[in-house]
């Protein structure tokens, strides 16, 4: 029965109830549309080519990290080390791919390394920290909050030490090789007259791969099962420890990709790169309906959450709202979004 037919069979109070539920459950989208209309009305440049491309590319830059963290949240965990891993990977990638003639080169005698090699190194660093996170969570039965809090500090320490290597002395790393920046921020397609950077396409490819992993592989099914009920998963023959470890390794790889993209995207990388990225990613996930209840989440939810969050950030700037006030608004939006989301899992009485 289609939902229009079903609506027709309802009586008055049922319809009122249905409308109310519909309104509350879709309030995020309605809010989104309302916000776009209002912002557009106040500031007509909001829905112009450059602004739209800006929102899309900011979303794309944040998508891989959010997709990684979403896995941890589905396991009722979290990952606080994500931002620092992005920072470490970004600095390492940047230092290995500085232009040969650049005066402040970190490794002055190093030739231009092939992009693929550095990409693989980036993934390897992410995967390694992810492996540590996953291994400790699974093996020692620790909550990922504790594990990733520790690795966050460890990774940050490693990053600070790395920045002291060679001639660098703790400065930020810039002067990147043009092949690198071209690969990431170059463009072959434009919206209107604004070029769409390449990393938008990379994010798209990664999203498709992640969708595939979540929905079409045994690993994905097992991840949702472990998130929903780890004891039942164990009895059902799922290797729970392996699944937990792999989810974090996969997340680490996602942070590696984010770091590799981020380094070229922002051009100048310091110890502050990646700071608090995990918080935006977690916020995006929960706004998009990836629930801390465990076992619940969809790729399209993560995309929605990331885009929505960016749209709000950009929109607030467009409205020239005070930067301090922006934090308060963001906080409230996250709170309200989660409260609405939680309604779905409450047992109705």
């Amino acid at each position, binding site marked *: 029965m289609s939902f229009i037919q079903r609506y027709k069979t309802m009586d008055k109070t*049922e319809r009122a109830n249905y409308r109310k539920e519909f309104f509350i459950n879709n309030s995020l989208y309605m809010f989104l549309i309302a916000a776009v209309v209002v912002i557009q009305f106040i500031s007509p440049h909001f829905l112009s080519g450059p602004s739209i491309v800006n929102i899309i590319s900011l979303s794309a830059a944040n998508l891989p990290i959010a997709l990684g963290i979403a896995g941890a949240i589905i396991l009722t965990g979290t990952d606080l080390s994500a931002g620092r891993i992005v920072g470490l990977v970004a600095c390492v990638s940047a230092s290995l791919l500085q232009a040969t003639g650049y005066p402040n080169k970190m490794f002055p005698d190093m030739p231009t390394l092939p992009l693929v090699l550095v990409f693989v190194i980036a993934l390897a660093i992410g995967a390694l920290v992810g492996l540590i996170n996953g291994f400790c969570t699974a093996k020692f039965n620790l909550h990922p909050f504790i594990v990733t809090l520790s690795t966050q500090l460890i990774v940050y320490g490693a990053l600070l030490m790395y920045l002291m290597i060679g001639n660098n002395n703790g400065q930020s790393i810039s002067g990147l090789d043009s092949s690198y920046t071209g690969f990431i921020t170059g463009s072959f397609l434009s919206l209107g007259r604004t070029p769409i950077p390449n990393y938008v396409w990379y994010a798209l490819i990664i999203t498709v791969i992640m969708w595939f992993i979540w929905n*079409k*592989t*045994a690993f994905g*099914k*097992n991840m*949702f*099962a472990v998130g*929903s*009920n780890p*004891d*039942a*998963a*164990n*009895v*059902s*023959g*799922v*290797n729970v420890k392996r699944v937990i470890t792999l989810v974090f390794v996969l997340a680490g790889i996602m942070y590696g990709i984010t770091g590799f993209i981020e380094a070229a995207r922002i051009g100048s990388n310091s110890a502050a790169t990646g700071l608090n990225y995990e918080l935006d990613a977690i916020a995006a996930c929960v706004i998009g309906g990836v629930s801390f*209840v*465990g*076992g*619940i989440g969809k790729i399209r939810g993560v995309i929605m959450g990331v885009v929505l969050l960016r749209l709000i950030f950009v929109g607030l700037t467009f409205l020239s709202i005070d930067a301090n006030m922006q934090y308060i608004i963001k906080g409230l939006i996250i709170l309200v979004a989660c409260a609405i989301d939680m309604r779905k*899992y409450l047992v109705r*009485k």
Partner: protein
Amino acid sequence: MSDKILLEMESICKDFPGVRALDNVSLKIREGTVHALMGENGAGKSTLMKCLFGIYTKDSGKIILDGKEVSFKNPKDALEHGVAMVHQELNQALKRNVMDNIWLGRYPKTFGFVTSERQMYKDTKKIFDELGISADPKMIMSKMSVAQRQMVEIAKAVSYNARIIVLDEPTSSLTEQEVGHLFRIIDMLRERGCGIIYISHKMEEILKISDDITVMRDGTHVTTEPASSFTMDKIIKLMVGRELTNRFPEKTNKPGEVILEVEGLSSKYNQVEDVSFKVRRGEILGFAGLAGAGRTEVIENLFGISSRSGGSIKLHGKEVKNRNAAEAIKNGFALLTEERRSTGIFGILNICENTTISSLKKYKRGKLVLSDKLRRKDTEWAIKSMRIKTPSQRTQIRTLSGGNQQKVILGRWLLTEPEVLMLDEPTRGIDVGAKFEIYQLIVELASKGKAIIMVSGELPELLGVCDRICVMSGGKLVGEVDASRTSQEEIMALAAQNV
């Protein structure tokens, strides 16, 4: 016993979207009586109780307590008016001790704000002594047995001077002795003039303990009569609305050659010690024993989810290790666990995910991809052959009734094509009609050549379904009997050996 009506629920109606859950149901509880409330799952017993306790708001009807009309806002409100409920699944603060649980929310205070541990201890001890409960008020709840925790809950009701006490399936996880103790407490409460509403599926018990019996069916009140005018067959007939000639299906399975040999099985962290037995193809082997005798632990050990310290398992004469569940499944074992909610279902996932989780490898197309089509097909098969009542495959399993959830999990295990199917309390918390269907499935599976090991605390069910019964006591196997030639008494005598 008197004819004074303590609690009256009059023409209660409750609608849920699309269903009338309660249709003009009335219930009168006399002072100093045990009033059994019977009906299949879904008959409306719990809904009626939830209306009483204000968990649901009734659409119409009246509730009269002691001559005054009442309408409780929530269970706490009801409790303060002397109406208490002891739930089937106990909701207690397990990490706190006994007296904390009893006085939670109304700690006795000195100087108006300091909680008085001494007062709590004294008061708790007093109630325990009255009821003949031997537990220490300072014991942590999680260290107590289910039976003791239930006693605590009853003590809590008594501490509120409750006049109406609802017991929901109180004996589903108690041993015979513990049931005896519970019944003595119920008798005491009855003498004090309490009205007890007793919800249970166990006919023998109901006939033994209750004064009045009310039978419900499909949200309606069928009859209320003194217990003496009922027989088991009459209750069943009224409950299901049709004649159930047999509580157990005809046994069609024929045991063949031995396929599983277990020698000297022992556990590292629980009491299982030196357990040896054999199971034949097409045989249903029962495991009887008191709670805590190690029945569940034996099959968990066999399945590799509890640590083994010794022993060998041979399937078709070949040694298998079963170091973990995954390995056991690969070797052709399956285990339906006792605790459906905590180790069985994935509540928020749908039927299809719940059914196929243990056999995902079967659906691989190539190295990675799973075929949704094959998964849906197998789920459809499970729904059909297990006769699962569900709107669709995409329904969340938590919304199904207990019996249907059990069938989904049974379906999950059959899809792994096991040779040895182990069932731990397969009919716990399931109504009469669904129980029969589960028995039928078990016998059918045995007829198809599966070796079945069934653990149960209900002796009639073991005697009705099994071919042989192993009796456990204190972690050891103390005897093995032929199900067609033994009696409940013989099994109980064996089971009480090492206590």
